[in-house]
């Protein structure tokens, strides 16, 4: 994509205006995180340099101010990702309840290592830290959805459903 092609559609533009209305006029930089989330959801699940430059132009700030933020927060993908990013919690309570087994099971089932997309670009496994779901461990998150109290059988069904759905997951 070239810069000229990166532009929010009308619906997203409306959301941008709603977000900007949340802050005093001279404090619009506060919109940066919400706008990066929106951009990631709208432009294929990741933030390309062109996308970040576009956000900088909307907020009238330096591109570096966007880069430094995008690289700080773990939810922003700075490289292309598969349609469904499976984010598995590996911290204490989840580890105690079988998170390592979940990772291994997925690696085997999808025939990829953590971090690699599957060949069809459908799935990608990412290990993450506590997602606030410790009481329903083990768990993973895909887009804004939490999948909890996981078992291998449940995972089979979830992947099956997503394969059929075949859309890109998103938070926003």
């Amino acid at each position, binding site marked *: 994509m070239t810069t000229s092609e990166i532009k929010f559609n009308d619906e997203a533009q409306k959301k941008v205006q709603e977000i900007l209305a*949340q802050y*005093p006029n001279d*404090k619009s*930089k*506060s*919109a*940066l*995180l*919400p706008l*990066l*989330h929106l951009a990631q959801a709208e432009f294929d699940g990741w933030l390309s340099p062109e996308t970040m430059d576009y956000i900088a132009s909307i*907020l009238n700030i330096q591109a570096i*101010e966007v880069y*430094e*933020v995008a690289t*700080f*927060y*773990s*939810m*922003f993908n700075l490289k292309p990702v598969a349609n469904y990013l499976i984010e598995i919690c*590996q*911290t*204490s*309570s989840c*580890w*105690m*309840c*079988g*998170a*390592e*087994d*979940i990772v*291994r*099971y997925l690696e*085997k*089932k999808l025939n990829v290592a953590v971090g690699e997309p599957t060949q069809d670009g459908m799935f990608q496994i990412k290990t*993450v*830290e*506590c*997602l*606030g*779901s*410790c*009481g*329903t*461990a*083990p768990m993973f*998150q895909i887009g*804004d*959805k*939490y999948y909890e109290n*996981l*078992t*291998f059988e449940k995972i089979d069904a979830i992947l099956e459903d997503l394969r059929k759905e075949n859309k890109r997951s998103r*938070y*926003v």
Partner: protein
Amino acid sequence: MNEKLLLKYDHIPGINTLAVYRQHNGYTSLEKALKTLKPDEVVEEVKKSGLRGRGGAGFPTGMKWSFLAKPEGVPRYLVCNADESEPGTFKDRYLMERIPHLLVEGMIIASYALGANASYIYVRGEYYYIIKILQKAIKEAYAAGLLGKNILGSGFDLDLYVQPGGGAYICGEETALLESLEGKRGNPRIKPPFPAVAGLWGRPTVVNNVETIAAVVPIIQDGGDAYAKIGVGKSTGTKLISASGHINKPGVYEIELGVPVEEFIYSEQYCGGIRNGKKLKAVVAGGSSVPILPTELILKTAKGEPRLMTYESLSDGGFATGTMLGSGGFIVMDEDTSIVKNLFTFARFYRHESCGQCSPCREGTAWMEKIIKKFIDGKANMADIDLLWDVQSKIEGKTICPLGEAAAWPVAAAIRHFRHEFEAYVRNPQSINEVKHYYRLNNLVEA
């Protein structure tokens, strides 16, 4: 006694909607505050209640509110901390998901008390579905005249917004949160100045946890004195506990402060005992950063008194034999759990989450993770135990924010109480393969 103040109606179908919430006393506290109390009188009730911040530090809320600077002509803000990222903690998520209007009502009352006309709820980005739930509740509140201009004819105006984080534990630290809300990296600020004087956009700001703000609703409803009667001593009221790990009934429980730890773990009303009939080995009582305690010290204090779920009782004995209530993230480990391996998950977490500004924290967390990994890989020697102790001891008090300490305390406590386990891994590196590092869901079936 089993008094519920926050989760009284959490199981009522539709309680997430304004209509059903209103059928269960919803927004009557707000009405009472706006129609019968002056802002300072609301602060007074909260002071009387003895409510202490539920985000982890336990600072008295009424006192925090009275520190807010009020320079003429400068807007001030209330910011709700819904970053909830301390491992073991998931109570704020539960509360916001089930009863979003309780938080919204609390935000309006607290904003009125503080004289804030714009307030923000900063929610960790991973909770995006919660953000949608909150936005829906806020929309309903605007439509009913509970937000916006001249709320319930009182002359008080308030706009309430929800802001997403981006996946960074450090943004739970209040000044990092404010930086993040300003659209920057989450680097904690050097204090002073405190947010009460220079917070969001340099203006006076109060930052409070979700549960703290929600507790203001019952406090106004029944009065600060009635709230103060619940609990024990300076641990007044109720507390949401996130219970997880090897227990029969993990989940969020609202307890009256003062419940004995033993009752909390074993009674059917709460955790329902240890899974699979196993024995208890250790508990992390207040989220990943508080010291782990072995069975004997979590059930009873060093003096032999029953340990209670209160700020004071849990910290009895200091760090030598006690711990902290913290965020109420209660992680239970059974007899088969490897303390060293669990510690490794914490060490990895803190290394990942250090913002990197201070070298003792940035370098120390990386070293701690590396050294603990050696034990797990069967490559450690006895001197590594002392090295690990040395590294953790050089972080405390030398950093901008308390994350460095939060990373060091669990390491210190693990060595203090479970040194023999580190030694066993050194003596017999093979033993690591015999310990159950994790729970198999069932036998790993071939995919």
